[in-house]
Protein backbone atom coordinates (compact mmCIF):
# COMPACT_ATOMS: atom_id res chain seq x y z
CA UNK A 1 0.00 0.00 0.00
CA UNK A 2 2.68 2.41 0.95
CA UNK A 3 4.29 2.02 -2.44
CA UNK A 4 1.08 2.80 -4.28
CA UNK A 5 0.55 5.93 -2.28
CA UNK A 6 4.08 7.00 -3.01
CA UNK A 7 3.56 6.43 -6.68
CA UNK A 8 0.52 8.66 -6.71
CA UNK A 9 2.11 11.34 -4.61
CA UNK A 10 5.33 11.49 -6.60
CA UNK A 11 3.68 11.61 -9.95
CA UNK A 12 1.14 14.17 -8.85
CA UNK A 13 3.78 16.41 -7.41
CA UNK A 14 5.92 16.14 -10.49
CA UNK A 15 2.84 17.14 -12.43
CA UNK A 16 2.18 20.06 -10.13
CA UNK A 17 5.77 21.23 -10.26
CA UNK A 18 5.95 20.96 -13.99
CA UNK A 19 2.63 22.77 -14.24
CA UNK A 20 3.86 25.72 -12.27
CA UNK A 21 7.14 25.80 -14.09
CA UNK A 22 5.42 25.74 -17.44
CA UNK A 23 2.95 28.35 -16.36
CA UNK A 24 5.86 30.65 -15.68
CA UNK A 25 7.60 29.88 -18.92
CA UNK A 26 4.39 30.14 -20.85
CA UNK A 27 3.60 33.42 -19.29
CA UNK A 28 7.02 34.84 -19.98
CA UNK A 29 7.08 33.88 -23.64
CA UNK A 30 3.47 34.39 -24.49
CA UNK A 31 3.66 38.02 -25.43
CA UNK A 32 6.77 37.67 -27.42
CA UNK A 33 5.40 34.82 -29.46
CA UNK A 34 2.17 36.65 -30.12
CA UNK A 35 4.18 39.65 -31.13
CA UNK A 36 6.28 37.62 -33.52
CA UNK A 37 3.21 36.30 -35.22
CA UNK A 38 1.67 39.70 -35.49
CA UNK A 39 4.82 41.25 -36.80
CA UNK A 40 5.09 38.65 -39.50
CA UNK A 41 1.56 39.38 -40.63
CA UNK A 42 2.05 43.11 -40.43
CA UNK A 43 5.23 43.05 -42.41
CA UNK A 44 3.49 41.06 -45.06
CA UNK A 45 0.60 43.49 -45.18
CA UNK A 46 2.93 46.43 -45.51
CA UNK A 47 4.69 44.60 -48.26
CA UNK A 48 1.57 43.85 -50.25
CA UNK A 49 -0.16 47.18 -49.70
CA UNK A 50 2.50 49.83 -50.20
CA UNK A 51 1.92 52.89 -48.13
CA UNK A 52 0.37 51.07 -45.23
CA UNK A 53 1.05 52.64 -41.89
CA UNK A 54 -1.23 50.69 -39.66
CA UNK A 55 -3.23 47.56 -40.13
CA UNK A 56 -6.51 46.21 -38.99
CA UNK A 57 -8.02 42.76 -39.04
CA UNK A 58 -11.35 42.95 -40.78
CA UNK A 59 -12.39 39.38 -40.98
CA UNK A 60 -11.17 36.00 -39.86
CA UNK A 61 -12.00 32.40 -40.50
CA UNK A 62 -9.93 29.33 -41.07
CA UNK A 63 -7.81 29.59 -44.22
CA UNK A 64 -8.96 33.12 -44.89
CA UNK A 65 -8.40 36.39 -43.04
CA UNK A 66 -8.76 39.85 -44.47
CA UNK A 67 -6.78 42.79 -43.18
CA UNK A 68 -7.13 46.40 -44.03
CA UNK A 69 -4.05 48.48 -44.64
CA UNK A 70 -4.45 52.06 -43.53
CA UNK A 71 -2.57 55.21 -44.38
CA UNK A 72 -1.63 57.93 -41.96
CA UNK A 73 -5.14 59.23 -41.94
CA UNK A 74 -6.49 55.90 -40.94
CA UNK A 75 -8.38 55.31 -44.13
CA UNK A 76 -8.24 51.84 -45.56
CA UNK A 77 -6.17 51.97 -48.71
CA UNK A 78 -6.31 48.30 -49.57
CA UNK A 79 -7.18 44.82 -48.44
CA UNK A 80 -4.65 42.18 -47.57
CA UNK A 81 -6.08 38.74 -48.03
CA UNK A 82 -4.37 36.07 -45.97
CA UNK A 83 -5.24 32.64 -47.35
CA UNK A 84 -3.93 29.13 -47.66
CA UNK A 85 -4.54 25.97 -49.62
CA UNK A 86 -2.87 22.81 -50.87
CA UNK A 87 0.05 23.23 -53.24
CA UNK A 88 2.16 20.65 -55.03
CA UNK A 89 2.64 18.58 -51.95
CA UNK A 90 1.84 20.58 -48.88
CA UNK A 91 0.06 23.78 -47.85
CA UNK A 92 0.85 27.20 -49.29
CA UNK A 93 0.01 30.29 -47.25
CA UNK A 94 -0.01 33.63 -48.98
CA UNK A 95 -0.97 37.24 -48.59
CA UNK A 96 -2.49 39.15 -51.48
CA UNK A 97 -2.85 42.89 -51.48
CA UNK A 98 -5.70 44.48 -53.45
CA UNK A 99 -7.29 47.84 -53.77
CA UNK A 100 -10.39 48.57 -51.78
CA UNK A 101 -12.73 47.71 -54.61
CA UNK A 102 -11.07 44.32 -55.04
CA UNK A 103 -10.54 45.05 -58.71
CA UNK A 104 -6.82 45.32 -58.89
CA UNK A 105 -4.10 43.41 -57.15
CA UNK A 106 -1.28 45.22 -55.49
CA UNK A 107 1.22 42.56 -54.73
CA UNK A 108 1.48 39.00 -53.66
CA UNK A 109 3.61 37.56 -50.88
CA UNK A 110 4.08 33.90 -50.11
CA UNK A 111 4.31 33.41 -46.35
CA UNK A 112 4.73 29.70 -46.06
CA UNK A 113 5.30 26.90 -48.55
CA UNK A 114 7.00 23.54 -48.80
CA UNK A 115 7.22 23.27 -52.58
CA UNK A 116 10.19 21.65 -54.24
CA UNK A 117 13.27 23.82 -53.92
CA UNK A 118 14.35 25.14 -57.27
CA UNK A 119 11.02 24.33 -58.81
CA UNK A 120 7.75 24.98 -57.07
CA UNK A 121 9.62 27.07 -54.54
CA UNK A 122 10.06 29.65 -57.27
CA UNK A 123 6.64 30.97 -56.29
CA UNK A 124 8.49 32.94 -53.64
CA UNK A 125 10.75 34.34 -56.29
CA UNK A 126 9.97 37.87 -57.45
CA UNK A 127 11.56 37.53 -60.83
CA UNK A 128 10.01 34.34 -61.97
CA UNK A 129 6.64 34.64 -60.38
CA UNK A 130 5.68 37.38 -57.95
CA UNK A 131 6.38 40.22 -60.37
CA UNK A 132 3.56 39.09 -62.58
CA UNK A 133 1.13 39.61 -59.73
CA UNK A 134 1.63 43.31 -59.48
CA UNK A 135 -1.25 45.35 -60.73
CA UNK A 136 -3.38 42.65 -62.21
CA UNK A 137 -6.96 43.12 -63.03
CA UNK A 138 -8.85 40.96 -60.61
CA UNK A 139 -12.38 42.05 -61.22
CA UNK A 140 -12.93 38.61 -62.71
CA UNK A 141 -10.97 35.42 -62.25
CA UNK A 142 -7.26 35.73 -62.93
CA UNK A 143 -5.94 33.19 -65.39
CA UNK A 144 -2.66 31.50 -66.10
CA UNK A 145 -0.67 31.86 -69.31
CA UNK A 146 0.61 28.48 -70.32
CA UNK A 147 3.06 28.00 -71.95
CA UNK A 148 4.61 30.96 -70.27
CA UNK A 149 4.80 34.24 -72.15
CA UNK A 150 8.25 35.57 -72.72
CA UNK A 151 7.72 38.93 -71.07
CA UNK A 152 5.21 40.56 -68.79
CA UNK A 153 4.07 42.83 -71.61
CA UNK A 154 2.66 39.98 -73.61
CA UNK A 155 0.26 39.07 -70.84
CA UNK A 156 -3.35 40.20 -70.72
CA UNK A 157 -4.15 42.41 -67.73
CA UNK A 158 -5.89 39.54 -65.99
CA UNK A 159 -3.19 37.01 -66.78
CA UNK A 160 -0.15 35.85 -64.91
CA UNK A 161 2.78 33.83 -66.15
CA UNK A 162 3.36 30.17 -65.28
CA UNK A 163 6.63 29.06 -63.83
CA UNK A 164 8.05 26.71 -66.40
CA UNK A 165 8.32 23.25 -64.90
CA UNK A 166 6.11 24.13 -61.98
CA UNK A 167 2.67 24.46 -63.44
CA UNK A 168 1.08 22.78 -60.49
CA UNK A 169 2.45 25.21 -57.95
CA UNK A 170 1.53 28.14 -60.15
CA UNK A 171 -1.96 26.76 -60.55
CA UNK A 172 -2.24 26.15 -56.85
CA UNK A 173 -1.39 29.75 -56.02
CA UNK A 174 -3.80 30.92 -58.65
CA UNK A 175 -6.50 28.70 -57.23
CA UNK A 176 -6.01 29.99 -53.72
CA UNK A 177 -6.03 33.57 -54.92
CA UNK A 178 -9.10 33.23 -57.08
CA UNK A 179 -11.20 31.47 -54.51
CA UNK A 180 -10.20 33.77 -51.67
CA UNK A 181 -10.82 36.79 -53.87
CA UNK A 182 -14.26 35.60 -54.66
CA UNK A 183 -14.94 34.88 -51.03
CA UNK A 184 -13.73 38.30 -50.04
CA UNK A 185 -15.87 39.93 -52.67
CA UNK A 186 -18.85 38.18 -51.22
CA UNK A 187 -17.89 39.40 -47.77
CA UNK A 188 -17.51 42.90 -49.09
CA UNK A 189 -20.94 42.78 -50.67
CA UNK A 190 -22.43 41.48 -47.45
CA UNK A 191 -20.80 44.35 -45.65
CA UNK A 192 -18.75 42.17 -43.41
CA UNK A 193 -15.58 44.04 -44.14
CA UNK A 194 -16.36 47.27 -42.43
CA UNK A 195 -13.22 48.80 -41.10
CA UNK A 196 -14.89 49.69 -37.85
CA UNK A 197 -15.51 46.11 -37.02
CA UNK A 198 -12.43 45.43 -35.00
CA UNK A 199 -9.01 46.79 -34.42
CA UNK A 200 -5.83 44.89 -34.39
CA UNK A 201 -4.21 45.79 -31.09
Amino acid at each position, binding site marked *: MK*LSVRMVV*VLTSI*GLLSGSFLATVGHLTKER*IALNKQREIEEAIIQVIPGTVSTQKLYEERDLSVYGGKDEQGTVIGFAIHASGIGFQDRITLMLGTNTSLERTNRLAIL*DQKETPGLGAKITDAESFLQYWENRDCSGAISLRKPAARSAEELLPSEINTITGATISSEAVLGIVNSSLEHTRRLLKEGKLSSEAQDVN
Partner: protein
Amino acid sequence: MSTKTIGQEFIKGLWDENPVFRQLLGLCPTLAVTGAVINGLAMGLATTFVLIFSSLVVSSIKKLIPSQVRIASYIIIIATFVTVADRFLAAFFPPISKNLGPYVPLIVVNCIILGRQEAFSSKNTVWRSLIDALGMSAGFVLAMLVLSAIREILGAGTFLGYQVMGAWFEPWIIMILPPGAFITLGILLALALHIEHRTKSRK
Protein backbone atom coordinates in the same frame (compact mmCIF):
# COMPACT_ATOMS: atom_id res chain seq x y z
CA MET B 1 27.61 1.20 -11.83
CA SER B 2 29.85 2.61 -14.45
CA THR B 3 33.57 2.05 -14.36
CA LYS B 4 34.45 4.43 -17.14
CA THR B 5 36.46 7.54 -16.61
CA ILE B 6 34.78 10.85 -17.16
CA GLY B 7 36.53 11.25 -20.45
CA GLN B 8 35.40 7.87 -21.70
CA GLU B 9 31.90 8.63 -20.53
CA PHE B 10 31.87 11.62 -22.81
CA ILE B 11 33.68 10.12 -25.76
CA LYS B 12 31.51 7.02 -26.00
CA GLY B 13 28.59 9.15 -27.14
CA LEU B 14 30.57 10.37 -30.11
CA TRP B 15 31.20 7.00 -31.62
CA ASP B 16 30.91 3.78 -29.62
CA GLU B 17 27.41 4.54 -28.49
CA ASN B 18 26.54 7.23 -30.98
CA PRO B 19 22.77 7.41 -30.72
CA VAL B 20 22.16 7.75 -34.43
CA PHE B 21 24.87 5.78 -36.14
CA ARG B 22 25.37 3.05 -33.63
CA GLN B 23 22.11 2.73 -31.75
CA LEU B 24 19.69 3.86 -34.46
CA LEU B 25 17.78 5.99 -32.01
CA GLY B 26 15.93 9.18 -32.78
CA LEU B 27 15.95 8.60 -36.49
CA CYS B 28 12.77 10.55 -37.12
CA PRO B 29 14.13 14.02 -36.36
CA THR B 30 17.45 13.03 -37.86
CA LEU B 31 15.79 12.37 -41.16
CA ALA B 32 13.22 15.11 -40.99
CA VAL B 33 15.13 18.27 -40.24
CA THR B 34 18.49 17.68 -41.83
CA GLY B 35 17.60 19.24 -45.14
CA ALA B 36 19.53 22.33 -44.09
CA VAL B 37 22.45 22.60 -41.72
CA ILE B 38 20.89 25.41 -39.76
CA ASN B 39 17.82 23.34 -39.01
CA GLY B 40 19.84 20.30 -38.11
CA LEU B 41 21.99 22.37 -35.83
CA ALA B 42 19.02 24.01 -34.16
CA MET B 43 17.36 20.68 -33.66
CA GLY B 44 20.55 19.22 -32.27
CA LEU B 45 20.92 22.05 -29.82
CA ALA B 46 17.30 21.89 -28.74
CA THR B 47 17.69 18.19 -28.13
CA THR B 48 20.89 18.81 -26.23
CA PHE B 49 19.13 21.28 -24.01
CA VAL B 50 16.33 18.89 -23.22
CA LEU B 51 18.64 15.96 -22.70
CA ILE B 52 20.94 17.80 -20.36
CA PHE B 53 18.26 19.27 -18.20
CA SER B 54 16.16 16.14 -18.03
CA SER B 55 19.24 14.14 -17.10
CA LEU B 56 20.11 16.61 -14.38
CA VAL B 57 16.65 16.54 -12.93
CA VAL B 58 16.20 12.82 -13.22
CA SER B 59 19.53 11.96 -11.71
CA SER B 60 19.00 14.32 -8.81
CA ILE B 61 15.57 13.05 -7.90
CA LYS B 62 16.10 9.43 -8.91
CA LYS B 63 15.87 8.20 -5.33
CA LEU B 64 12.45 9.74 -4.85
CA ILE B 65 10.80 8.11 -7.83
CA PRO B 66 9.37 4.65 -7.35
CA SER B 67 10.48 2.54 -10.28
CA GLN B 68 6.92 1.78 -11.32
CA VAL B 69 6.18 5.36 -12.21
CA ARG B 70 9.61 6.27 -13.42
CA ILE B 71 8.76 6.24 -17.11
CA ALA B 72 5.71 8.40 -16.50
CA SER B 73 7.74 10.81 -14.43
CA TYR B 74 10.46 11.00 -17.04
CA ILE B 75 7.89 11.75 -19.68
CA ILE B 76 6.51 14.66 -17.73
CA ILE B 77 9.94 16.00 -16.96
CA ILE B 78 11.06 15.69 -20.55
CA ALA B 79 7.86 17.20 -21.87
CA THR B 80 8.38 20.15 -19.58
CA PHE B 81 11.81 20.90 -20.97
CA VAL B 82 10.67 20.30 -24.51
CA THR B 83 7.98 22.90 -24.00
CA VAL B 84 10.59 25.30 -22.73
CA ALA B 85 12.76 24.69 -25.77
CA ASP B 86 9.83 25.03 -28.10
CA ARG B 87 8.64 28.28 -26.55
CA PHE B 88 12.14 29.66 -26.51
CA LEU B 89 12.65 29.00 -30.21
CA ALA B 90 9.25 30.39 -31.07
CA ALA B 91 9.95 33.52 -29.07
CA PHE B 92 13.47 34.27 -30.17
CA PHE B 93 14.04 32.45 -33.43
CA PRO B 94 10.67 32.42 -35.15
CA PRO B 95 11.97 31.44 -38.63
CA ILE B 96 13.80 28.42 -37.31
CA SER B 97 10.86 27.47 -35.21
CA LYS B 98 8.70 27.62 -38.31
CA ASN B 99 11.12 25.49 -40.31
CA LEU B 100 11.33 22.83 -37.66
CA GLY B 101 7.57 22.68 -37.48
CA PRO B 102 6.28 19.96 -35.22
CA TYR B 103 9.66 18.32 -34.84
CA VAL B 104 10.71 20.32 -31.81
CA PRO B 105 7.72 19.21 -29.80
CA LEU B 106 8.47 15.73 -31.05
CA ILE B 107 11.69 15.71 -29.08
CA VAL B 108 9.45 14.53 -26.30
CA VAL B 109 9.15 11.12 -27.93
CA ASN B 110 12.74 10.97 -29.04
CA CYS B 111 13.98 7.62 -27.85
CA ILE B 112 17.42 9.00 -27.15
CA ILE B 113 16.19 11.11 -24.32
CA LEU B 114 13.91 8.64 -22.65
CA GLY B 115 16.46 5.92 -23.26
CA ARG B 116 19.24 7.86 -21.56
CA GLN B 117 17.11 8.57 -18.54
CA GLU B 118 16.18 4.95 -18.19
CA ALA B 119 19.58 3.51 -18.95
CA PHE B 120 21.83 6.05 -17.34
CA SER B 121 20.54 8.97 -15.34
CA SER B 122 18.32 6.86 -13.19
CA LYS B 123 21.34 4.91 -12.03
CA ASN B 124 24.16 7.42 -11.93
CA THR B 125 25.21 10.52 -10.12
CA VAL B 126 24.25 13.98 -11.30
CA TRP B 127 27.76 14.67 -12.45
CA ARG B 128 28.12 11.50 -14.47
CA SER B 129 24.69 11.95 -15.96
CA LEU B 130 25.63 15.41 -17.07
CA ILE B 131 28.75 14.12 -18.80
CA ASP B 132 26.81 11.29 -20.36
CA ALA B 133 24.14 13.68 -21.58
CA LEU B 134 26.78 15.97 -23.00
CA GLY B 135 28.44 13.08 -24.78
CA MET B 136 25.22 11.75 -26.20
CA SER B 137 24.14 15.18 -27.32
CA ALA B 138 27.49 15.77 -28.92
CA GLY B 139 27.07 12.49 -30.77
CA PHE B 140 23.60 13.49 -31.85
CA VAL B 141 24.65 16.96 -32.96
CA LEU B 142 27.55 15.43 -34.82
CA ALA B 143 25.24 13.06 -36.65
CA MET B 144 22.85 15.88 -37.47
CA LEU B 145 25.72 17.99 -38.74
CA VAL B 146 27.19 15.31 -40.95
CA LEU B 147 23.87 14.36 -42.41
CA SER B 148 22.64 17.89 -42.92
CA ALA B 149 25.94 19.02 -44.35
CA ILE B 150 25.89 16.29 -46.97
CA ARG B 151 22.29 16.96 -47.80
CA GLU B 152 22.61 20.69 -47.95
CA ILE B 153 25.81 20.74 -49.95
CA LEU B 154 24.63 18.23 -52.50
CA GLY B 155 21.04 19.35 -52.45
CA ALA B 156 21.46 23.07 -52.63
CA GLY B 157 25.14 23.66 -53.16
CA THR B 158 25.30 25.64 -49.94
CA PHE B 159 26.53 25.21 -46.41
CA LEU B 160 24.68 27.13 -43.73
CA GLY B 161 23.24 29.13 -46.59
CA TYR B 162 26.61 30.09 -48.09
CA GLN B 163 27.32 28.98 -51.61
CA VAL B 164 30.12 26.44 -51.44
CA MET B 165 29.82 24.73 -54.77
CA GLY B 166 30.75 26.50 -57.97
CA ALA B 167 28.20 27.83 -60.35
CA TRP B 168 28.71 24.75 -62.50
CA PHE B 169 27.12 22.66 -59.85
CA GLU B 170 23.61 21.53 -60.51
CA PRO B 171 22.02 20.92 -57.10
CA TRP B 172 20.63 17.44 -56.52
CA ILE B 173 17.23 18.46 -55.29
CA ILE B 174 16.51 14.91 -54.26
CA MET B 175 18.92 15.29 -51.40
CA ILE B 176 16.72 17.80 -49.61
CA LEU B 177 13.65 15.70 -50.26
CA PRO B 178 12.59 12.62 -48.29
CA PRO B 179 14.11 10.00 -50.62
CA GLY B 180 17.49 11.67 -50.35
CA ALA B 181 17.22 11.69 -46.58
CA PHE B 182 16.60 7.96 -46.41
CA ILE B 183 19.27 7.08 -48.90
CA THR B 184 21.91 9.34 -47.39
CA LEU B 185 21.29 8.04 -43.91
CA GLY B 186 21.38 4.51 -45.24
CA ILE B 187 24.73 5.07 -46.87
CA LEU B 188 26.12 6.77 -43.78
CA LEU B 189 24.98 3.89 -41.62
CA ALA B 190 26.65 1.45 -43.97
CA LEU B 191 29.84 3.43 -43.68
CA ALA B 192 29.57 3.48 -39.91
CA LEU B 193 29.09 -0.28 -39.82
CA HIS B 194 31.98 -0.75 -42.16
CA ILE B 195 34.29 1.41 -40.05
CA GLU B 196 33.20 -0.40 -36.94
CA HIS B 197 33.85 -3.71 -38.58
CA ARG B 198 37.26 -2.59 -39.73
CA THR B 199 38.35 -1.33 -36.32
CA LYS B 200 37.02 -4.43 -34.64
CA SER B 201 38.78 -6.85 -36.90
CA ARG B 202 41.99 -4.91 -36.47
CA LYS B 203 41.85 -5.27 -32.70
